[in-house]
Every structure is written in C-alpha cells, then in structure tokens.
C-alpha cells in the first residue's frame, strides 16, 4: 500500500539538488572518521527540486484546517485567534538567533522579556512566583507535582497519593503516575461538581495534592471551592490548578486568590500562541510562597540594572528540560499581553463567557446541555439520547460538522458525560459566526432524524472521507518503506 503523494515517492534525482560547499571530496573528508562508524548512504532520502517541495507542502497545508480557516470550537483547547504580530516579533533574528550559552551581557533583551512576562503572569494569576520552563500543560503538571513532592519530602512527610476528579483530563492522572504518585479518583456529583462527601472520605495525611480544573472540564465553576480549599488545607493537602480553562476567568479572577497553591498555564491556549498542530506550547508553573524554593532550574533576576539567570537553591527539584524555556513561545505570549494591556484583559474573560453563554442559549432548546446551571467559557452537549434513538455515534455528529466547514468540538470528553461534544467558542469569535454555527448544529440534529445516513457517511465535503482508525491500529504502518 503505497502513497504516490508522499515525498519519498517524488524523488527523481533532479539535477538541481540542494547543496553546501565543500572543498575536498567526500572520501577525503570522511577519512577523519573510521569507516566502521559511518553510514553507507542516505539513499532512503528523497532528492526533490525546491519547487516540487514547495508544492508538496502547500498541497499538505491545503488538506489542513487552522484557526484562520474557520471556527474551531474545540473544547478545553481555547482555539482563539493567534495574532500575526506575535509571529513577526518572534521571527526577529535578534530574538531568534540567540545561543543559550551566550554571555549575559549579550542577551539582556531576552532576559528582560522572560522577566517581564513572568511578572505579568504573576499579576494575572495571583501567584507569588512563576517559572517558565515547562514545555506544555502536561509538562507543567509534572513540574508542579515534582514541586509538591519535594515540599513534603523537605517536611519529612510521606504522601503517596494524588486526588483527581473523575472529570479530569487524562494528563492529570498520567502526570501523577510519572511523578511517582498513586492516583485516587474523586467522584463528581449529579451536576458535575466535586462530590464533597466523596472528597471528605478520600482526604487524609497520605494525600499530597488535589488537582482541580476550574472551571472544570464541564465548564462549571466549582461552587464549593471555598469548602474544598478548607478541607484540603486543613490537612496541608496542596491544591493544584490545571490552567487549561484559565480563559474563563482571565482578567476576572485570580487562582492564587481563591486558594490554589500551584497552577500551570497553557500559553498555547489562554495566551494566544499557536498550537502548531501539536505544539510547541509552554506550560509555566506558578506557586505560592511556601513552594518557591522548590521551583526548577534557573531563575531570571534583575540586580544592579542587569538581568541574569541564577541557579536556584539546594531545595530546587532540578531541571525539567534542557536550557531555560520555550523562549519564542513565551515571547509570543508576552507580545499578546503587551498588546492587550489591562484594558484588553478586562474584557477578554467576559467576552469568552458571553460567547459561550450565548451559543449555549441558542442551542439549549434543541440539545441536552450537560453544563448546568451556569455555563462559563465552554459547555458540554450530551448526545446520548440522540445516539440511542438513531444508532448514530457522537463521532457521526462530529464528522457531519466538518462537512459544513467547521472544526468539530471536542468529542467524548469529559468521560463523565456519555456521547458528548464539548464546545468552546473563545472571545475572538463574532456573533455572526456563533449564529451560523448554532444554525448548522440544529440542522444536523434534524438530519440525524430525517436522514441519519447523511451523518453515518459523513464527511463528504472534506479532502478525504471517513478514516479507518481500526485498520490503522490493527496493522500499524508507521513509516514509509520503499519495498512495501
């Protein structure tokens, strides 16, 4: 099974291959290294003219869908518009071409960006200190949990357990495992809030941390947050804030003021840096005073009119990544913060709430909205009833959405709602876009009753038809091979 459109099939040994200048011939140059340590050749690599390479990737880009293509209501992922100025600034060679081992004197601009971005994030989150090292949300979680582990180790306490709500994102329990903890799940009540009775049963001095997402993955603001904080803090259980949903409260409220000890942010969500089809992002970690000593790696400091990087003290958890940070990602989010300023942030969260609530109201007569009573920045639609009645799956609904030129909402997450779609419009979408999207969802609902095959056979308007995921997993083909 060979794809004729793969780059490896386009190799034609063209005369204008890419080149670098060398003076001696290949054999003489390779004489510097013993034959036994050299490869034979790179014959698997294609040689394609630059024009054909350009066409190849433009064709691929035409088979992709970005935020600039259209509405991307992917719940929990905050797919807002990524301002072009962010990319432009990050592309400046005076930022892009800097070696991480440059002398401090030569990187004052870089260090000032890092320092000021950190200050802004401290202000926005209400935490006492922020570290910029982590590469993504899950990496931020891991870093936060290492910090909590080090905190208890320093207190000579053995606390092997992390609590996570059953509504939590998969990375929460996975990060807890990678950090060497045991995971215990806390139930949600009928509405999706943390079940306080269950929490009370599960807390003890064996628990190091309770990881919350707030608003939670249903789009609900934890109504008993104060009580949760008290239950945990009475036992010195650290409260963790998964910042994936920070957009809901950005500029409105600060997790640091509501009782959280550790937060991570997703700069590639709330702070408008592009997700890149799977990263790179950045997942800065914020902590309260009692945890500052445990932060990773190095710290940017400003002393005597000079910025520098300083290794943290002996209680630090150590490094979680090579070098300092995903600098260009941090830079882009700092451009965003500087652009919006305090006026922009005073509207951002409110408009994210407005868009989600508006869309929710447009749909609630037609769909079972599982996010009750108050929608924050996103909401979950349960299609359980529709699926039961029609023998369609939630995926059929999602694929039909693609046919109308939209990206689908998040499918089948959170796990506590069966057959669900999670919709997050973000603040950068207009009323008109939301009106149209609601119309389409209602139309698809109608189609599911009158002509369910339309959904079953969808998508039909996309570059390719429905993908066979079962076949992909059953007979894994994970790289191109000439002889197959």
């Amino acid at each position, binding site marked *: 099974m060979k794809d004729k459109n793969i780059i490896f099939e386009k190799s034609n040994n063209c005369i204008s291959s890419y*080149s670098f200048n060398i003076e001696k011939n290949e054999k003489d140059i390779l004489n510097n290294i013993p034959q036994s340590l050299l490869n034979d050749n790179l014959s698997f690599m294609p040689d394609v003219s630059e024009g054909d390479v350009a066409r190849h990737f433009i064709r691929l880009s035409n088979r992709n869908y970005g935020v600039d293509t259209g509405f991307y209501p992917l719940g929990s992922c905050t797919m807002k518009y990524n301002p072009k100025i962010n990319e432009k600034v990050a592309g400046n060679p005076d930022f892009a071409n800097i*070696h991480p081992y440059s002398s401090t004197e030569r990187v004052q601009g870089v260090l000032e*960006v890092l320092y000021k971005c950190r200050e802004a994030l401290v202000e926005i989150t209400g935490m006492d200190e922020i570290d910029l090292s982590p590469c993504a949300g899950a990496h931020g979680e891991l870093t936060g949990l290492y910090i909590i582990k080090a905190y208890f180790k320093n207190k000579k306490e053995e606390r092997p357990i992390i609590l996570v709500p059953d509504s939590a994102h998969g990375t929460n329990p996975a990060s807890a495992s990678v950090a060497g903890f045991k995971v215990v799940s806390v139930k949600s009540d009928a509405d999706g809030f943390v079940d306080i009775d269950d929490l009370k049963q599960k807390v003890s001095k064996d628990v190091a941390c309770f990881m919350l997402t707030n608003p939670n993955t249903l789009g609900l603001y934890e109504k008993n947050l104060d009580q949760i904080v008290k239950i945990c803090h009475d036992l010195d259980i650290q409260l963790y804030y998964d910042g994936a949903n920070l957009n809901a409260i950005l500029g409105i409220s600060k997790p640091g003021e509501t009782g959280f000890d550790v937060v991570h942010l997703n700069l590639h969500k709330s702070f408008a840096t*592009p997700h890149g089809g799977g990263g790179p992002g950045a997942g800065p970690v914020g902590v309260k005073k009692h945890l500052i000593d445990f932060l990773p790696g190095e710290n940017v400091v400003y002393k005597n009119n000079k910025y520098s990087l300083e290794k943290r003290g002996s209680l630090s958890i150590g490094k979680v990544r090579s070098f300092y940070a995903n600098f260009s990602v941090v830079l882009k989010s700092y451009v965003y913060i500087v652009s919006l300023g305090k006026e922009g942030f005073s509207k951002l969260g409110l408009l994210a709430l407005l868009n989600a609530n508006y869309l929710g109201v447009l749909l609630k007569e037609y769909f079972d909205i599982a996010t009750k009573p108050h929608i924050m920045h996103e909401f979950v639609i349960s299609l359980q009833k529709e699926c039961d009645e029609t023998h369609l799956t939630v995926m059929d609904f999602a694929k039909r959405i693609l046919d109308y030129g939209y990206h689908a909402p998040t499918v089948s997450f959170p796990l506590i709602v069966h057959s669900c779609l999670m919709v997050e419009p973000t603040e950068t979408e*207009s*009323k008109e876009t939301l009106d149209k999207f609601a119309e389409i969802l209602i139309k698809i609902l109608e189609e599911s009753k009158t002509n369910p095959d339309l959904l079953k056979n969808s998508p039909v308007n996309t570059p390719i038809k429905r993908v066979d995921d079962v076949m992909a997993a059953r007979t894994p083909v994970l790289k*191109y091979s000439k002889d197959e």
Partner: protein
Amino acid sequence: MTYFPHSETDIKEMLSVIGKKNLEELESPIPAKYIVKTLNLPSQKTELEVNQYFDKLANKNKNYSTILAGAGSYYHYIPSTVDELTGRQEFYTAYTPYQAEISQGTLQAIFEYQTYIANLTGMDVSNASMYDGGTALAEACVIAINSTRKNKILVDKYVNPEYLEVLKTYMGALKVEIVIFESNPFKLDVEAFKKIWNAEFCGFVVASPNFCGSVIDYTGIVDIVKKDKRLVIQSVSEAMSLSVLKTPGDMGADLACGEAQSFGMPLSFGGPYLGFLTCKKEHLRKMPGRIVGQTKDSDGNIVYTLTLTAREQHIRRELATSNICSNHGLCATRASVYLSTVGGKGLRTCGLANIEKSHYLYEEISKLAKFKVEKSQIFFNEFVVSTDIAYDKISKKLEENGILSFLPLAKFYSSLSNYYLICATEMTTKEEIDNLVAILGSL
C-alpha cells in the same frame, strides 16, 4: 490591540438573548470577593507601538558575529522554505490532528517526519516528537525501566549534562537509581564497562556524539547488555551527525533519543527545540506520545491518522506510557520541510561541510603552541581544546571580538579544568576560523 470582533450592539443583543443585563452578570458563579477590578498591567498598545517596543527590546540583545559553540544547541543554516512553508496558517494555527479528515496536512508531515527520523536512527518506529533532547532521554529510560522491571540505570558520564539533570529529576521521582559510568571523554573502555555492568541495570545510556563531541564506538558493549536482555539507549544531541554516522540501530542500540533542533529550528535561546525518540518494533507498545499511522478512508484512499492511542493518557490515564499530550509537532513539521528541502544529497554535503570545517579548525588550533587538541579524538563538528591560559583572559578577548566559543568544560566536569568545547558547522567561514586562530595565537 485587542482581537474582539463584537460591536456594542452585538454585546447588547447577545446579553438580551441570554437574559442578562450586563457582562458582569456572567461572572455570577464566581464569588464576588474573588472578582478583581483591574489587573495591574500597562495600558494596551497599538500594533505600531507594540512593534516599536519589541524592536527596542530586540536591540538590547547583542548577537555574536561568529558562533563557534554548540553544546546541544547548533547553529545551522535554515533553508528559506522552512519558515515559508511551515508559516502557512493551516499548519501553525491547527490543533493536534484529532479530526483526521481535515488534518491530513499535519498528519502526513508527521508521518514523513517519522520516516525520516526512524531511518536516520536505523529504527523501526518514531513517535511524533518529544519536547526536547532531555525529556526524550527521560522517556527512553522509562521504556527501559518498564520493559525490564529494573530500577537502576547505567548512564555514561559524557551524556549532555543538561539531559542528565533532566533525567535525574524524572528518575528521582520514580525512585530509579542512576549510576554514572565514569568513562573517558574520547572513547568507551569495554573492560571498565564489564566491571560495572550487571543485570540489575535496566539498560545503558551512551551518548554519541557525546558532550565532548566524540563519536563513540560502543559496539563492544552491545552483546554484554543484550545477553542480560537489557536495553542500549543512544542519546544524540546533534542530529546533524546522523547525516554521516552509522545509525544507532546499526550500532546495536534498542532505543535512540535526542535533539533534532539542527533540522530547521532556530537557536531561540534554547527552545522550542525538537526531541526525538525512536525504537525497535518490540518496544512499540511502550512508546510515549502521539504516533501517526497510515490507513485508508472509506473511498479506499491512503490516508493518515493518530494511532495506537491505547498507550496514551486520554485513554489509559494513570496507566499511560507517559503524560505527554501536546508535543513539539510544528518543530517536527519544520524538520520534515528541512529534510525534504535539502534531500539526501544536501543533508550529506551538509554533514561533510561540518566535518571539513571543524577539522580544519582543529588542525589550525593544533598548530598553536599554547593550545592542545586531543590527538585521538574522533568527532563530527565539535571537539575539545585544552590550554593553561586563564579562562577570563580567553573569554574577554573572544567577547571583544564578538565570538561565542570556548565553552569551559570545567563548568560540567571537575576533571576537565582547562578544557574547552569548540564547534564549527557549515555556517562557519574560513575567515572566521582564521580570525579565531589569530586571536588565540596572540594570547
């Protein structure tokens, strides 16, 4: 600049549909005591002002005119196609390709990346990327631990020290003991290895090229490790070396991991870079992160999709092989564009240029009375120089001349005081080399 598309009328209409009087009513689930009035941030700026502000900041950086340093972050040429093509919004503003039918671009670019990296490392399988060389090493060690159920790992002393620090953080939390193999910066001593090796280790991590730039022949230890059914992991901090060096797979490694920043990522003060992780097929089910596979659509076309997801956090939660979710996908796409642009011939000549330039520099420095190179060192683009001249004196002179070079190895190894790391790549010109050598000669 803000990016809100609402008019005042829109806001009013929307509020009335929702049944709220003003925007603030939407905050009602948040207790009033937690509502902030305004953030203490500077006022918003116009795009022009933002530009001016960041131009000023950028100008505070004083970049070197010559970079003759590597140490895990390599100055290579980035073909014009890389920014241009990965700068397509369809690539960079997309999310993880969950909806395969509208994400074939990302998926195929990653599949091609997996093909390139698996072949360059001589392995069967590559995942869709890791964060960086350090976390890739940590994840590789987790595979070795999980597949052998041993809680000890032997690590060569000259693995990139940044990676080693990351590894210590990850392994410490899992109560895995790291034992350092006190090897030699220039070659692996098989007899010394035999003395320390035993089957209580889940595997052995070797770096080649190692932090000193040495290409290490570790074939002599492969059978020793394999006899005990343990894993050999090769960490590669300079992926460009794979253009000419024997693949980790052919050397005998079970897993290869490292840093592919050299394939189209700018230096960017250390990140974002491109971690890679590849394995022989028997370890496939233990691989962390996203993997793209080939399949068919309902019309029978060959297409691509995320696959083998039963390893991952969103399915397996605390039992997942890793917690990684977002990775460095766009960096992998950049690597695809980079490698497709330069092609086999371009990559080969790029590798040759690295060898030629760095060996010329090595020869020239070896002629200087006050500097010594290691006669036996086998290297790709980075090597070690020693001298009795005080570091302050060298660094002051190089700084004055705008040259980044002579990274002091004493910072990382107490046994290597007076030793320095130097790198030359295809970017290096003969003038730059001659200039550096003249400056050194004058010290």
